[in-house]
């Protein structure tokens, strides 16, 4: 089971929900003698990772990551323009008697070096960020990445984080995506069986939920919604109705409604997980995971997924 938790914008409690889901799965595993294994949690919000503040992993492993960018040997370069022509990201340009590389646009695909007729291109590592990994006190395997300051290339770092730490057969994966609906979110969600969209029942929340739902639709990944900061006193008011109606019309199941409470906000500010604040939420989140598992199965049956089959054999 691979679940990506996303939201159309920041501040909806996306990380809070992702963390609570992971903790409840770890707790279920502990009560069941470690079966299935406690989940793997990947914080792919690499521009502002914060899940470690709640899960408190012991980050022992560390890795520098980057992309290989071209370095031009000006003594060999004839300024023929071939490299600029093949680069689909316009990261290399030939301007008169100069060949210029723009590292911030380079995706490290290697096409330019492959196509240079003079062998004038050498590939050198351009560091983009750091990955860290470890185990949390609850037994959750944890990994996150941090983008170097001012570095716009998030996608390769997310891709390398997901390649560096992969779930074992039978181990659930919870991915905390960055807020928004950018290519970083798409990269984080790639390969997931389910997109859990976190939203608030407010007019802005609805707008952002629509953006996140669009990502799910484009990627053809089944999705469901957790409505956070759900004020039951505000039930049947316009914003709440609008969000609920939207979910119904779009066939997006609302898997849970997390109440709006001062003690939750205060607990989160102290670095507590939802489960620490309200231990009785364990079953609520276990229920979310169960509903997701049920929704994934039929989807998998209709689209044969080689990787999914492999995991089932491994289990």
């Amino acid at each position, binding site marked *: 089971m691979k679940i990506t938790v996303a939201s159309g914008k920041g501040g909806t409690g996306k990380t809070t929900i992702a963390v609570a889901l992971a903790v409840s799965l770890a707790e279920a595993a502990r009560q069941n003698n470690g079966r299935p294994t406690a989940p793997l949690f990947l914080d792919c919000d690499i521009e502002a990772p914060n899940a470690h503040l709640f899960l408190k992993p012991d980050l022992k492993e560390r890795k520098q990551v980057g992309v290989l960018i071209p370095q031009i040997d000006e003594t060999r370069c004839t300024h023929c323009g071939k490299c*600029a022509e093949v680069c689909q*990201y*316009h*990261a290399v*340009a*030939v*301007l*008169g008697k*100069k060949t*210029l590389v*723009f590292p*911030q*646009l380079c*995706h490290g695909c290697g096409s330019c070096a492959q196509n240079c007729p003079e062998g004038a291109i050498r590939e050198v590592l351009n560091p983009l960020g750091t990955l860290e990994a470890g185990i949390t006190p609850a037994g959750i395997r944890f990994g996150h990445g941090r983008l170097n300051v001012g570095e*716009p*290339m*998030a*996608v390769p770092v997310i891709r390398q984080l997901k390649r560096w730490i992969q779930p074992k057969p039978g181990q659930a994966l919870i991915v905390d995506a960055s807020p928004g609906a950018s*290519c970083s979110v798409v990269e984080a969600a790639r390969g997931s069986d389910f997109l859990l969209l976190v939203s608030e029942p407010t007019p802005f929340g609805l707008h952002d939920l629509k953006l996140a739902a669009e990502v799910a639709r484009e990627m053809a990944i089944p999705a469901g919604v957790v409505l956070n900061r759900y004020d039951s006193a505000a039930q049947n008011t316009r914003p709440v109705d609008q969000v609920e109606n939207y979910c119904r019309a779009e066939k997006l199941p609302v898997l849970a409604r997390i109440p709006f409470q001062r003690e939750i906000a205060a607990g989160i500010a102290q670095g507590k997980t939802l489960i620490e604040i309200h231990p009785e939420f364990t079953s609520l989140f276990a229920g979310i995971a169960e509903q997701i598992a049920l929704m994934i199965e039929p989807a998998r049956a209709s689209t044969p997924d080689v990787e999914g089959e492999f995991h089932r054999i491994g289990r």
Partner: protein
Amino acid sequence: MKVLITTAAPDIGASIDPRFGRAASFLVVDTETGEWQALDNPALHSSGGAGIQAAQIASLNGCAAVISVEFGPNAFDALHAADIKMYQFGSAGSVEETLKRFKAGQLQQVGQPTSPGHHGG
């Protein structure tokens, strides 16, 4: 000398476009003969590197100067490397007026990026 002017349409009578990399069209004008050529911007809808492509177009067409408003950091670096001078329209609203002021040396030259730029990826 040839200059590249960013315009809203591929015509000498078109209004100016303030975006360098994302301009609708480029007008390459020979300031001595008045001859001009309009080019579509191939990077109008590309995801990134539009300013760099525009700089390459200026370079390939032998322009010694470009006139626009918003030069992002990549466009600035590329134009700078190609030794192409950057100018801003200022209060000039038409191509004709821009050319007149350019020839009179009245346009402001740009010494650093004038917009934060955009990044693909």
